[in-house]
């Protein structure tokens, strides 16, 4: 029977995973069968996708991609690889959304921000001390290249306005609204929904402080607009933005993008 082993189609005569591992790898290798890591022996079937990953060894670049793909759910991976998602604002929400989308293998990301990385960003944004002073677009591109170098990243180091928004984001299926200021959020959502007839927006409102995690949710306002957050907790003096709730909200946005990319419209 034919299977795919480490990204290459081969014909095998043995019947179990452990036999294949003995023949082609080492007994400490991690086994990923059809996107799922297993540690017990089982029968192999025709068409299975099997990946053996040696522990503690830096793989060659062409092997790395097939090893990473092994962990993506196979039927979903193709749709994600074709996805084009833009992220407007690369702060606490945007930087973390971008990293999550890169980890799941979304093929094409556009990163938009005008600002650079400052020490005050490190409390919640996906940057490190080595990024201080760099434009956020450049810092995040570097960060993503260290996580998944097999996706295409475009960057725009500009401030988004009513006049340039439609041009900046046209060609992208989904835009994540990840700005900080309420007026900017409103401007982006209104402009894109009015000017780009097929774009879908996953926006955010309300995630400051350390109120309960469970008030943050995703709602569908219309067929092209989703809003994540608790809709009330505004960042203000005495109620700052803190990593846990900001990342919960970013997770809601990233999961809604994932659901849309695989064709699910419900929240």
């Amino acid at each position, binding site marked *: 029977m034919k299977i795919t082993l480490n990204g290459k189609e081969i014909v095998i005569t043995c019947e179990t995973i452990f036999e294949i591992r003995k023949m082609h790898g080492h007994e400490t290798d991690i086994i990923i069968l059809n996107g799922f890591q297993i540690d017990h022996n089982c029968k192999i079937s025709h068409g299975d996708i099997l990946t053996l990953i040696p522990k503690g060894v830096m793989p060659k670049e062409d092997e790395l991609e097939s090893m990473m793909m092994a962990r993506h759910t196979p039927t979903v991976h193709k749709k994600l690889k074709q996805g084009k998602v833009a992220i407007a*604002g690369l*702060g*606490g*929400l*945007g930087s973390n959304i971008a990293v999550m989308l890169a980890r799941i293998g979304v093929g094409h990301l556009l990163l938009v921000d005008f600002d650079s990385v400052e020490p005050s960003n490190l409390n919640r944004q996906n940057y490190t001390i080595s990024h201080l002073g760099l434009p956020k677009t450049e810092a995040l591109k570097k960060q993503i290249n260290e996580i998944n170098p097999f996706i295409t990243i475009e960057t725009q180091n500009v401030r988004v306005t009513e006049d340039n928004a439609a041009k900046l984001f046209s060609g992208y299926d989904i835009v994540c609204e*990840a*700005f*900080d*200021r*309420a*007026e900017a*959020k*409103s401007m982006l*959502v*209104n402009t894109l*929904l*009015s000017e780009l007839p097929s774009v879908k927006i996953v*926006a*955010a*409102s*309300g*995630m*400051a402080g350390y109120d309960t995690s469970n008030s943050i949710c995703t709602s569908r*306002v*219309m*067929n*092209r*607009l989703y*809003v994540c*957050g608790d*809709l*009330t*907790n*505004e*960042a*203000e003096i005495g109620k700052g*933005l803190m990593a846990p709730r*900001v990342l919960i909200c970013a997770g809601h946005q990233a999961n809604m993008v994932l659901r849309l990319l695989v064709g699910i419209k419900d929240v």
Partner: protein
Amino acid sequence: MKFNGTLIPLEKGQTLLDFLKAQNYDVTKIAVVLNDTIIPKATYNDVMLHDEDTLEIVRFVGGG
């Protein structure tokens, strides 16, 4: 009229802008979806509301 998921009584002859003002919305921080269509800010004063309408208003608060 159905407003953010709840049926409410609607005063006759109200424009969208009248309604937003009465509800104390800051028009610079919202998105208005009427019957599944986004309403551009510049037209808030031209849109009349009706009993059979479904109105969804998203209020954005700062933070991200």
